[in-house]
């Protein structure tokens, strides 16, 4: 384990009021420094900050580390760690640097290739996927985890998405406007 302080500006609120504040010290539960940097760079590239918070703003990388540390068995942890290493090795082969040290353009080039190469998830119904599931590969599964970590974070779930814990009535047909957001729950 190690202590890495990654300076990232804080969450952007819906009102666009930014305040500068150092990100808290993150001591990963499982990932090595290199793995942690790769995970942070990946979630940031997939879900960057715009007018709405990005994945780093809601600590999606920190959450992914926690999930892998506490819910994966040792074998699955090792498998994911190997995949992260391979992903980085791929970037190093092409550009001579690990993914997290690449600039935005080069990161995007790597991900464009990964998007093309990765399988797709079969659709699911009531907890189980249907049909034959093709091999997914590291990138698509990681992206899925990043999206999940992002959408289920409190900042996004409560303040960005449509948060309605007790809807009361059900209305089966409401108009969508520009401001309509995905239901968070």
């Amino acid at each position: 384990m190690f202590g890495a302080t990654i300076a990232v500006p804080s969450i952007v609120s819906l009102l666009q009021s930014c305040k500068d504040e150092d990100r808290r010290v993150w001591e990963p539960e499982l990932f090595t420094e290199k793995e942690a940097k790769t995970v942070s760079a990946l979630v940031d590239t997939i879900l960057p900050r715009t007018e709405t918070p990005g994945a780093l703003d809601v600590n999606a990388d920190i959450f992914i580390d926690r999930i892998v540390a506490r819910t994966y068995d040792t074998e699955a942890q090792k498998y994911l760690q190997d995949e992260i290493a391979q992903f980085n090795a791929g970037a190093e082969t092409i550009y001579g640097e690990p993914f997290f040290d690449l600039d935005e353009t080069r990161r995007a080039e790597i991900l464009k290739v990964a998007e093309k190469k990765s399988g797709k998830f079969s659709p699911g119904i009531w907890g189980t996927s249907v049909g034959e599931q093709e091999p997914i590969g590291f990138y698509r599964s990681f992206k899925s985890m990043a999206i999940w970590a992002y959408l289920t974070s409190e900042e996004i779930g409560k303040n960005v998405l449509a948060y309605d814990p007790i809807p009361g009535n059900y209305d089966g047909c409401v108009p969508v406007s520009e401001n309509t957001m995905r239901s968070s729950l």
Partner: protein
Amino acid sequence: MANYNIDAAKETTYDAIVIGSGISGGWAAKELCEKGLKTLVLERGRIVEHVVDYPTMNLDPWDTELRGNLTPEQKEKHYKAIRSGWIGTDTEHFWADDKASPYTEKKPFLWLRAHQMGGRSLLWGKQTYRWSDLDFEANAEDGHGVDWPIRYKDIESWYTYVEKYAGISGEALGLPQLPDSHFLPPMEMNCVEKHVKSRIEKAFEGRNVTIGRCAHLTVPHNGRGQCQNRNRCSRGCPFGAYFSSNAVTLPAAHATGNLTIRPFSIVQSVIYDDTRAKATGVRIIDAETNEAIEYSAKVIFCNASTLSTTQILLNSTSNRFENGLGNDSGELGHNLMDHTYRVGAMGTVDGFDDKYYKGRRPNGIYIPRYRNINAATKTDKFVRGFGYQGGAGRGGNPANTEAFGADFKESILKPGPWEFFITGFAECLPYHENQVSLNSEVTDKWGQPTLTIDAEFKENEKAINKQIQEDAVEMLEKAGVKNVLGFDNDHSPGWGVHEMGTARMGRDPKTSVLNSFNQVHAAKNVFVTDGACMTSSSCVNPSLTYMAITARAADYAVSELKKGNI
């Protein structure tokens, strides 16, 4: 309504004993208590008091450290049930410990269990449909299994009775193959469901798309609140808006002053007295202290859930019943059924991007059976039939989109594409060889024999599944659904979680275990009114029928008791 009368279990003699507190046990307790019987409910798990013991009912994903994901230890504890895909930290505490209570699968069979007060009534799907004579006459009609000893007319008034109390919402259609319940107002379809409904009904004569009939209150009812469309039912509902033993029947039983619930009481066997030719009580093992205790009663209701009830009966041996209580026919443990499901079709729907919905309705749409319901719809490919459940929603899997970055991130914050799916539920025939048996080699945490399950779907079920998929694809395509994907997740029994049979009702003691009032043929003060009693499986969800059969049997039991017949 707190303070279930637990201490009173120091008393060992009662008028009635009810084994199990799930959907049917709760009804047995309510009916017997209301008719004045001092009733002991034996529950193998802990007390779960309505609302008080629903710790996760209001939690948002970010309120727990792992946002619903199970730890390796939790996965190990539920290593069998986890295959269902339904267990997260929001409901983990309501699922049985597979390590403490193992079972053996000769062929794959998912046995989902809930070992606490209320049982699976806390976790069930809440779809509620009446059976019709198409179902009760099916075995006699095509010769599979034995004839039901009852018909629709015998149970019709009991359906009404339980529906009025439980609160069932739905739309009346007047279909002979799917009789209407006594309905509360139906839930609403969303705009895509309405669209698909109109297209399917126009394209296919005799097919209906209706809102699911379900045990969710759409208006306040009997002191319980209406559904708030949170869709967090399986955590326990703070509004009491869906039917569970915990919210509905057990409080009613408790209110009579006649109810005693004893938790942590694993029923080992029913005690049969050879000389008096009747059951005299039950033996339990205290799950916490391992103490063996006997309780006696005049009448015993077995409602431990289909397979657990049969397990208890198989384990209840005596000189008179060497192979299990009431097993003169040799049918105890046999004719296990479930519904096939996870066969159907899905796709996306264009043209409704400007429409969304408000609320998370815990219900879907239903397509009642339309094949083999009369001469005109008869097929020679299979006997019996199927219905569909399904629905539409805006979802999608954004991870599949070949994009990343700023625009992609903004897109996932918006409602996803409209999707529509239906999945069939098919009737399964009663095969003698689909069975459970006691296994003394594998014992549970309390040293008791466990069950070996040996069951599979056969040719008729496979032929129905083929039709389900073909019809589903055809209907969705005709309805204008795009990217239609038919699916048939080659699966095994248990996944439908509608286990039925293994102590079937029948007219002849030589070929059945129970009579027309759910009495064990040769031990008339023992009643079985959970899914074990089922003689065939219909294609509709069975819980409403368990409720009606239980209320009917309890009424009969009390009347026989008063007459001195049992």
